[in-house]
């Protein structure tokens, strides 16, 4: 992911996301949705930055948890 928001823009986005889970899911559905939600609260540059976000396909492992692998991994990182 590229781009940086201004400090004010970042703050506005975080505040907007401090909402109920269902509303948050709608805001995060796409970059343009998020940009539209904070349009009046951020600079035009920040708005364009958000509108350009394209969420990648999220990585997902197998559906079943292997009980032997929950903690027995690396370094705690």
């Amino acid at each position, binding site marked *: 992911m590229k781009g940086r928001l201004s400090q004010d823009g970042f703050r506005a*986005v*975080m505040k907007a996301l401090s909402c109920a889970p269902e509303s948050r899911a709608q805001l995060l559905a796409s970059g343009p949705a998020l940009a539209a939600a904070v349009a009046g609260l951020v600079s035009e540059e920040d708005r364009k930055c958000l509108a350009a976000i394209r969420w990648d396909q999220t990585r997902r*492992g197998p559906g079943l*948890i292997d*009980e*032997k*692998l929950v903690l027995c991994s690396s*370094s*705690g*990182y």
Partner: protein
Amino acid sequence: MEVLLIKAPRGRYSYFREGSESLALGYLAAFLRWHGHFVAILDGQLEGLSVEDAFARCCNEGLVLIGFTVADPSFIPATFRLAEAVRATRPEVHLTIGGYAPTFHYQEVLTQCQALDSVVRYEGEATLLELVQCLEDKRDWRQVQGIAFRRGDVVVCNEPRPLIADLDLLPLPARDYVPFIQRHLPEIGVISLAGSRGCYANCGFCSIRQFYGGPPGPPYRLRSVKNVVDEIESLVRDHGVEEFLLIDDVFTLPGNAGDKRVAEWREKVSKRGLRVMLSISDRADQIRRPRYDELYRIGVRQIMMGVEATDPRILAYFNKGVTLDEIRAAFGVLRDLAIDVTITFINFTPKTTLEILEENLECLLSLDVNFLLGLLNRLQVYVGTPIADDMIKQGLVTGTFPDFSYRIPDERVEVAYEACRRCLSPFLEISYEIMKLERRFRVKQFRLEREGTDLRALLEGREWFKTTCRTIMREAADVFRGILNYASKECSLSDHFVEETRERASKRYEAWHRTLLLIGGYAPLFQGGDGALLLPRQEIRR
């Protein structure tokens, strides 16, 4: 003599990429090299190899011995497959194996994997050296103290070799993989050290005490602080490492001995001008001030705390020797010092009831920590531990090595656990992402502090990250409560409930994941502040 030491890849999907090299192989390699042998190390798990890839790297013509290390039982199946593949093509090479599981289960290991010639039990350096020297001199290696082997159909176990009395006399571990970690694993890679072997505590689920208590010798040995700091300094000098993970299960000692050792750390680190970050493990009852003020000053920025339980009945079952009050007090100290906390927690045990699960959840929420791994963690049967041995005596354990299992007597808990297994894998994914981002903050803050740069943007970003983590924990708790509520009423899982819960967890995950991506990818915190004002160091809470 040419030797290859291998950590086989686990060969199964893991939610967590390996980030650190095997110190076991590092110590063994260094010891053999010190005695003139040519040793290569292959860490298949760290490199993300398949078993087939690892096998392709075992074909050096000059090899006389291949030694496998097994970090935990989940590595056994792939290690056996690799050993069998090597044996089929290289019948002349001696194949040996070591580590906790092979030490305690040498009978099963040598019976199940006929490709293996021997097991090196307990501490491996001197035993492996003698084995290698026997092979080199073409002497009978079956006399080597500390090994087990087959004689026909019978498994023979020689006397355990006494532990090495003075760990300072060992050569520093080989660091063949440090450049690999630095180049290929920048997000998750970490350089580890061991300041001691063994542990002074006696937790019932843990096999450390049995491992180091088996052979003659003191079960808990410390390296001198000078020896450990020498190693840190060499890694800083030779590789530019600035962040270290101390893998000692307990970093500090109780009482005056502990204070003295911490003071020695402070003296040595500051005298040499070392500005490094340390991650350590410790017990809750040792986390107090002013000791931890000193540890902060030497660079400790993260603790792995073995909480394991919060219910007094389970704490007693585990023989932890700590109370919930001590755990809470420890969290208070670490919060005041702004030291990150990672916990281990065992939510599902033979003694767990649904009521205990409910109480655990509320307690974990109150600790304000990432509890997602612990929420899903189930006590594993490690034969040799007091708890496992007790479970076996009671006839609770089924299965065979390495796949032991048991039923939890409260059937509602088993229903809840099965629901977690089938529905909550997104919790593991997000936990991993939280840990990675937390580390980025920690490293960035450390570097900015070292430079004396304005921290305001970073601290604000970090607060938003913590707020996001709290939201994630609350929402995860809601999903988990849904599972507990279901388990309190139903005696088996319905497909409908599984589908609904899995969907709920996945949707939550999407939003959490994207929020963390925003923080990690778009926040200005990594630009460093506006340069106008420097945040005085004393404003960082002590």
